[in-house]
């Protein structure tokens, strides 16, 4: 699939292409392709869209782009924010430079997002990690070359990789060990592993960054399913080199969404939050938005389950789905900062700009400079509570920490950017999903089945790399196929 497809191809031809694309997706579209085309082409009143997608993040825009390329023109994407990109966002550093405030990396096995980047002619480059990482704690400091890792204990890593083979990432609740594993927290398991005191802070940081919570409240089954997504190699999940943090996107991750939105033009409607969804079980779904009522035959819900929970549904959703949304964890509102310097001065000292601070406020800081290091950028995940709300005070606190780690040049930044996802706007609520123990046993089966004409999408529904940008692209593509198939039956 290419963005270079001629825009003026006949709609009917594109619809047949859509049928062919869906058939490749193995969902049984080998019959009735002509019917599918006819169904979409039948007299649609202008005020009823074939498909409305809620959410212009990576999943929603991927779904919209696939539908658009398939010839579905009766299409609208509704976005509550005044921008596209969802949980990907570029800080504009000026002079054409950016630093990512949200999801930013891709890695091995994340083929869906890598393909999308290629299709959109967006380049990638490796994360910078060569040199020594600085570990701070109290007034102590040590610099050590971790060789592109977080210094994880290899024996623990090997045990986790082995266990993850029994937990299918697409359906953890179907693991043959679900009863045994889903009652445990990751903390319960780690407590049995004789973790050395000096390694505990590393595990806390790893869990906070990857899972959004410390080990005691992270479900072990879900954690293993995340490792399973990484090809059952823990180091592909939680490391830098050759891992899910190993590759960056030229122009920042939000550029993927921006490019897709550009293609879709006025099919993307910004600042249009949906408040209520009525008649989702009827032929025409009615969406009550801040810009009036919008009607659709099919609706793709490309938003986080916690945001689904903020909507009113009439009639109420089936209890299993409602219970899943009510219980979906949303307590990981990450705060991410970017400190900008004229150049990455730390590299001259053999430092890689990475800082792990035992006890915080910095959980992990890292070199997020542009591809050729033209300017220096230190990005950091910081503990929300440990940094002041006041941006000048938060900046000062971090420069002091960076100076201890990297040298006094860190005291002279050019600019500072700070994004607390919980408070930046009401349309994120949380970042990654710290699925607690027992969650999948209770709610797993309600994750994906559509409810009437509502099709659940968003990275949380992906069968591989759920929670990651790659999962968002997979979920978007899957929901586009689902909807095409459903429309064919009209």
């Amino acid at each position, binding site marked *: 699939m290419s963005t270079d497809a001629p825009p003026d191809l006949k709609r009917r031809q594109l619809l047949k292409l859509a049928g062919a694309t869906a058939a490749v997706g193995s969902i049984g579209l080998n019959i009735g392709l002509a019917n599918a085309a006819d169904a979409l082409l039948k007299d649609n009143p202008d005020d009823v869209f074939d498909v409305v997608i809620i959410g212009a993040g990576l999943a929603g825009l991927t779904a919209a782009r696939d539908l658009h390329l398939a010839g579905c023109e009766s299409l609208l994407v509704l976005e509550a924010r005044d921008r596209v990109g969802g949980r990907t966002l570029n800080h504009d550093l000026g002079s054409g430079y950016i630093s990512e405030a949200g999801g930013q990396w891709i890695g091995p096995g994340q083929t869906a997002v890598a393909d999308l980047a290629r299709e959109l002619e967006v380049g990638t480059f490796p994360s910078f990690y060569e040199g020594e990482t600085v570990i701070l704690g109290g007034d102590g400091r040590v610099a050590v070359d971790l060789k592109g890792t977080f210094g994880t204990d290899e024996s623990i890593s090997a045990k986790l990789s082995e266990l993850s083979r029994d937990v299918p990432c697409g359906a953890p609740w179907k693991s043959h060990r679900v009863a045994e594993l889903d009652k445990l927290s990751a903390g319960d398991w780690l407590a049995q592993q004789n973790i050395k*005191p*000096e390694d505990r802070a590393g595990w806390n940081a790893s869990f906070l960054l990857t899972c959004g919570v410390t080990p005691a409240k992270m479900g072990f089954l879900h954690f293993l399913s995340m490792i399973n997504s990484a090809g059952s190699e823990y180091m592909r999940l939680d490391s830098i080199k050759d891992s899910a943090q190993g590759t960056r996107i030229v122009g920042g991750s939000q550029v993927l969404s921006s490019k897709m939105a550009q293609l879709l033009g006025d099919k993307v409607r910004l600042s249009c939050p949906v408040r209520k969804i009525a008649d989702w079980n009827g032929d025409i779904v009615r969406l009550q938005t801040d810009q009036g009522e919008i009607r659709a035959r099919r609706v793709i819900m490309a938003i986080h389950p916690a945001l689904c929970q903020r909507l009113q549904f009439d009639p109420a959703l089936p209890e299993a789905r409602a219970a899943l949304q009510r219980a979906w964890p949303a307590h990981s509102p990450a705060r991410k900062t970017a400190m900008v310097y004229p150049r990455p001065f730390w590299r001259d000292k053999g430092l890689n700009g990475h800082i792990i601070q035992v006890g915080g406020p910095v959980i992990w800081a890292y070199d997020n400079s542009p591809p050729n290091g033209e300017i220096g950028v230190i990005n950091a995940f910081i503990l929300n*509570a440990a940094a002041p709300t006041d941006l000048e005070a938060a900046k000062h606190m971090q420069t002091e920490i960076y100076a201890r780690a990297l040298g006094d040049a860190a005291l002279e930044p050019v600019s500072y950017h700070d994004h607390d996802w919980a408070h930046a706007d009401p349309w994120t*609520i949380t970042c990654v999903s710290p699925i607690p123990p027992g969650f999948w046993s209770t709610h797993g089966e309600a994750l994906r089945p559509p409810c009437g004409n509502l099709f659940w999408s968003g990275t949380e529904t992906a069968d591989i790399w759920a929670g990651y940008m790659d999962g968002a692209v997979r979920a978007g593509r899957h929901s586009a196929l689902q909807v095409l198939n459903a429309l064919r039956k009209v």
Partner: protein
Amino acid sequence: MKKIIALGVIVVIAVLLAIFGRDLLDLYRLQSYITTSTETYQAERGNWPHLTDACTGCHGSHGNSLNSTYPSLAGQPAAYLSAQLRNFASGQRFAPNMGPLAMTLRPDEIDLLAKFYARQSVGTHGPVSPDEDLKDRGKQLVQTRGCTACHGAQLMGHEAYPRLAAQGQDYLLAQLNAFASGERIEPSGAMQAMAAALSAQERQAIAAYLAAIVPQPR
């Protein structure tokens, strides 16, 4: 001979310290910090990893948040904290972040968390408003509205009534606004009635004043 060897060792150590002195000292300090913090953790909470870690990100390791949008839990009455966790879980108090987390807590875990944060000392918190006129107006409103009747003479809270002194300004304002709009309720209805009768500016003044109060021992 032994003296010569001993002297040799001292010289070697001196040379090493001269070359690596600062790095060695820094490493020693890091190790000391980890040892001390590990012992403190064990004494205060128990075995790692502990349930209380789950609250650290937003509320601080001992319940003192420097970020005025996230509430400080330190020194809050245990009865108040456990009631709020139950309300989050039941949906009676609406908070998208807290609801699902509270739903995962067993009654004994709620009890443990409430008691842990209740016994923490109230620390210094983030910057407060420099607007003295605003804080003075807030003080007058707090006095005339009789806030101390429920929240205590020092506004440090007791039983079901939370500590307001030195709480985060943005959090306090958000709660006053939530009471005013009816989004947050409490059994007596007093907070809703009081907050709804205040103007938006008056709510700001009260939040500014309360956040700036120096916390007193209860």
